[in-house]
Every structure is written in structure tokens, then in C-alpha cells.
């Protein structure tokens, strides 16, 4: 049974977002890490980069495949989780805590309304 914290919003592409004021933290869901298994590499966007909602901005690699990570919202990348580049397994073991990818300063908070609630995400992954 996949873990889907109730205080987060989700993208169809399996990213989660935790909002705090005008910035938010982004990672990938428990479902996504379980699908990928064995994450061996994480490539984060450059700090200061401007991204649009739905834009590919990071890469997560398992043994078998490379997967694009899409920013759920538009804004500026303001912080990166360096530990996850040194220890990619954090994404598997702590997808909602130590395995976060980047923090983003929201340029258009209304975009959050287009994201999935925990219940809708649960439906999407067949829970």
C-alpha cells in the first residue's frame, strides 16, 4: 500500500509538493520510488533557474532507466537537496523527507489548484 501524505498535493507525473508560504518543496511519491526501485543517480536543476509548471527540470535514474522529473508549478529554483545527489538511495528510503529534490519560489500560486489532492492521486495510482 503506497504512502500518500495528506498534507501534500500531487502531479499526475508522480511529483509531490509541500507548500510553505510562497515557497514549496518538491519530490517524488512513494509510488514512484517503488516503481523505479534502486535509484542510482539524481540530477537536480541549477539554482536560480526559472521553470514553468510541467517543465522537465530534474532526472532520476534507476539501474534500468532515466526518468524526467517535472516541476509541478512555475517559479524559481531556490534550494537544492545536495544529500540526495550524494546518496540517491534516500529517494527510495525517504521519498517525502530526506529524499526531496528542490525548493521553488512560486510565481503563480493559483497553479496549485490544478494539482491532485491526496485522494485524487490515490485514485490515479489505483489505490
Amino acid at each position, binding site marked *: 500500500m503506497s504512502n500518500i501524505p495528506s498534507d501534500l498535493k500531487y502531479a499526475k507525473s508522480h511529483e509531490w509538493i509541500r507548500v510553505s508560504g510562497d515557497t514549496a518543496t518538491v519530490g517524488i511519491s512513494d509510488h514512484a520510488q517503488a516503481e523505479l526501485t534502486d535509484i542510482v*543517480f539524481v540530477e537536480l536543476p541549477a539554482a536560480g533557474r526559472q521553470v514553468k509548471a510541467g517543465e522537465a527540470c530534474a532526472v532520476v535514474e534507476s539501474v534500468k532507466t532515466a526518468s524526467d522529473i517535472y516541476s509541478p508549478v512555475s517559479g524559481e529554483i531556490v534550494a537544492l537537496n545536495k544529500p540526495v545527489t550524494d546518496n540517491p538511495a534516500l529517494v527510495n528510503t525517504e521519498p517525502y523527507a530526506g529524499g526531496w529534490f528542490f525548493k521553488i519560489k512560486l510565481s503563480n500560486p493559483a497553479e496549485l489548484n490544478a494539482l491532485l489532492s491526496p485522494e485524487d492521486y490515490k485514485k490515479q495510482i489505483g489505490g
Partner: protein
Amino acid sequence: MGLKRTALFSTHQKLGAKLIDFGGWEMPVQYTSITDEHLAVRNAAGIFDISHMGEVTLSGADAEKFLNFVLTNDIRKLVPGEGQYTLMCNERGGVIDDLYAYKLSDGVYFLIINASRIEPDVAWLKSQAAKFSGELILTDASHQYAAVAVQGPRVKEFIDACIPGGSNCAMRVARVTDLKKNQIGGFPFEHGDVLISRTGYTGEDGFEIVGSDEAIQHVWKNVLEIGKPFGIKPCGLGARDTLRTEVCYPLYGHELDEETTPIEAGVGFFVSLDKGEFNGHSVLAEQKANGVKKKLVAFKMTDKSAPPRPHYPIWANGVSVGEVTSGTQSPSLNVGIGMGFVPPEFAKPDTKIEIEIRGKRFAAVVVQKPIYKVR
């Protein structure tokens, strides 16, 4: 039309395997984790469903002559109960398939071919047989057989108990583990006789077992039960690929194809130029004598980077010179590894190269094969 399924499909489902489309077959890519399954084979034992692979039987007084013409290795070297790795080339020396050829008895041969190449191989063999005037019966037996590979250093500790007793045809031995590398024996088994060879695609000691659907279902069950205290794990195609990449075994469609010769791919050892005429002989003789324009190398990443993957460009001296054919993060070595083609001047071990990953270049070094040395 749906994907093809092997006799072990429901077993894979029950084990919770992640199933993928592999060349039209619905096959397990992993059961738990590619890394865990890979390490199980390196340290203990793993079992793979290889039922999708193809089998061809050839018999008749001229079967040996025919095979020595269509295959590159010298099949006359085989005694009954022995097999050899070999390649089947077209007239340009390009590889149609790489395969194992076994002599079961005088005039009776058994080929195990890649799943993805069953159709072109059989078509080629039939067209070659049509031009051949000799006593030969050729049969595509792929639909008749299921198969498993059981691989790892601990397999020899329990495999005899899985298929008890000695062989009664091909190589005569008192037990499975008396087979030497590349030997094959026919073993009676209560659910259907099986052919067992001491061969594999992982670099580890192990066996490949071919038989009817029912026999192989029981072999699978026995191996998982009896092998349990030895650490056996079911393993999918993901681990199969990382294991063979570590020991630099070619995969058809990656290191080998119809535009690539065995010499270019570094398997010239299995081309016997002095056995007489065979398909591709003149091109391969010329390459052995005068060299090749592209050479397969193995490499290791030296910069911290994402894993190298097929089709990533290879750079040398600031110029794009080739492409990665196979690449992965090595579960045994924890570094990116791979193989690819480069011009021969960049093929020496210790040559510095770069791999282009998503538009950026990362340092790597050419290494001797195999990249991982089995203990």
C-alpha cells in the same frame, strides 16, 4: 495480438514480478530489485526464465558439414555432449545471431538462439539448407521447449538435488555437477526429460536447463525450494542485463547486428578461419589480417555521473567518435560501466574517453574486458 507468455508466466505473477514487453514476450524485468537480484547471482544463486529463447535441431550425416558452413566456430571440435559459443554470419561477415551450438550425438545438433532472432535465424537456416545438397533435417523446435538458467557460485551445492541422478545421453555423467563447462547431458526427470548444459550468460558458474513446459515448471519449483537455504532468488531480465554487461558479454542488437562483424565486436576468438569455407569467411579473414574500422571497447566512468546508456555518444580527443552499445550502473562495482564502438586508435585500455550524457561530457576510461572479474 497480445504478448507471448512462457510456461512460467503465472509463477512470475504470483511472485509479484514487474512484467515488461521484451521483444513481444511478457517477461519479468525484476521481482524485487535489480540490484538485489544481481548481487544474489554474484554471491549465491539466481534463477532466470529463458523460455522465450529459441531452439533448432539439425540432424543427418551432413549436419556437421552444413553447420560448419553457416557458423563461424569450428564445430568439428565438439565431441558428443559438448557445446560451443559461435556466430552465424551473412556473406558480408555481418552477424545474424550469436548462439550456442551443441553436439548431442554423431549427426545430431542442437542450437540455442536469441529470442529476438528466432524468425530471421530460422529463415536464414532454411534458405541456406535449400542451397545445400546433403543429408540434413532442420527443425525449428522453439515452441516445444521451455528453459531456465540457474546461475551463481552456490548453485553447485544444491542443483543435484533438484534434478537427481545421472544423464542417459549426450555427455554421460553420474550427476548434474559432474558436467564440465560447455558440456551438455540429457537427464531423466520425473516430469519430463531435460537437457542440462554447464553454460550461462552471467560469468558465474551455472546451468541452463531445457525441457517441456511441465518439466521446467517443476525444475523452477525444485530450485526455489531446495535452493532456499543457499540464498536462491528469482531474477529478471534487468539483472540478466547488468550481469552480462559487467562481464562484457555481447547482446544481439547492441554489440552485434547484421552490419557488425565478430572481429569488430571483439569475439574473433570464435571465428575459425582455417576450418575451410563458411559464410563471411573472406571479409573476416581480411579484417583479421588488416584490422577493422571500429572496435568494441569496455569502459568505466571516472567522473561522478549518471550511468552511461545505449546510444550515448563517445568522445575522444574532443571529437565524437562512436556510441555506447550497452551501459548501466554496475551493481557489483558501484560505478557506471559500458561497452561501445570506437575507432581502433582509441581502443587500448587506459585510453581516456568521454561519454556524453544529456548534452554534457563526463570522463571515462577504456578498460580490459571483462570489467568485473568473477571471483
